């Protein structure tokens, strides 16, 4: 399960969207399964419920989740966009990592070496 660790230098709302996308892409929540409530996410992540509400609405806009009046939020049938978000996340995180390594003047070759070492 995911820990709600947020980057303090980036806006909170998109981070909540990403984290929820990761949860859904990893099938922690299956299509049509009930999602956590706004309040639960807010308390777990220690963030403002309004921000979580906004994040949920954005995800709804992407068709990733849908709300049922009076009973909360559910995962949509189409988890494609969640997967896309996760793909983007993978891409950008890796890019960040490579950039960091460049700063440490680590060549791409060396990076590959390390990765190989760690994967074994």
């Amino acid at each position, binding site marked *: 399960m995911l820990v709600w660790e*947020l980057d*303090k*230098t*980036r*806006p*909170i*709302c998109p981070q909540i969207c990403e984290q929820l996308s990761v949860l859904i892409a990893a099938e922690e929540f299956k299509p049509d399964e009930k999602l956590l409530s706004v*309040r639960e996410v*807010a*308390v777990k*992540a*220690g*963030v*403002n*419920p*309004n*921000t979580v*509400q906004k994040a949920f609405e954005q995800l709804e806009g992407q068709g990733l989740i849908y709300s049922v009046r009076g009973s909360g939020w559910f995962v949509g049938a189409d988890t494609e966009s969640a997967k896309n978000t996760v793909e983007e996340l993978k891409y950008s995180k890796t890019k960040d990592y490579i950039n960091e390594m460049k700063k440490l003047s680590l060549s791409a070759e060396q990076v590959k070496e390390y990765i190989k070492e760690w994967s074994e």
Partner: protein
Amino acid sequence: MSELLKCQQLTKDYGGVLALNYIDLTVESGKIIGLLGPNGSGKTTLIKIINGLLTPTSGTVLVNGMAPGVETKKIVAYLPDNSYLNSWMTVGQIVDMFTDFYEDFRPELALDMLKRLGISPEAKLKTLSKGNKEKVCLILVMSRNALLYVLDEPIAGVDPATRDYVISTIINNYNPEASVIISTHLISDIEQVLDEVIFINQGNIVMKKSVDEIREEHGKSVDELFREVFRW
């Protein structure tokens, strides 16, 4: 979204020292707002005026359209920055007192929260630890179904566990129709919870912006920005 709090040209002069310097400020309902500033910047003065404990030198303050008085006290839940409860009273007596005076107070909720902390209603306030005393005060305030919550330095001088408890209690009891104003000089602990921050320095409102706006524009946390700009 209505204007829950409106200050116009609000001034407080402590005999030559301007604690508030002609402040204009509006707070809408449905927000958690951080009132941030170094010690002595005017945060507590503003809060005390909102609660009718201080008389402004000039200017007006309106809470839900009314000047501070009996009607505003019914809808404002206030947590002072000092311990203000009678230390000889028991927790239960204080709960009874809040039940008596505040129509919006929910004793079952307060007693339930106290029970979960293992604080007995028979316990006398003076026998409680500092952390527990702070928690009791917060529980009393958050157990009201108020329109405006004003919390003055709720996390100053408490241990990290208590701080987490305070933050999660605020989030847990937050009601989207109400607004919460939290004053603090410890920004990093609380900025994630805030919609907006009002930065106040030497009696002036320096900035009023949303947390995500600040992070977007500056690429850094609110805490970092203020440390940089105001060199705390």
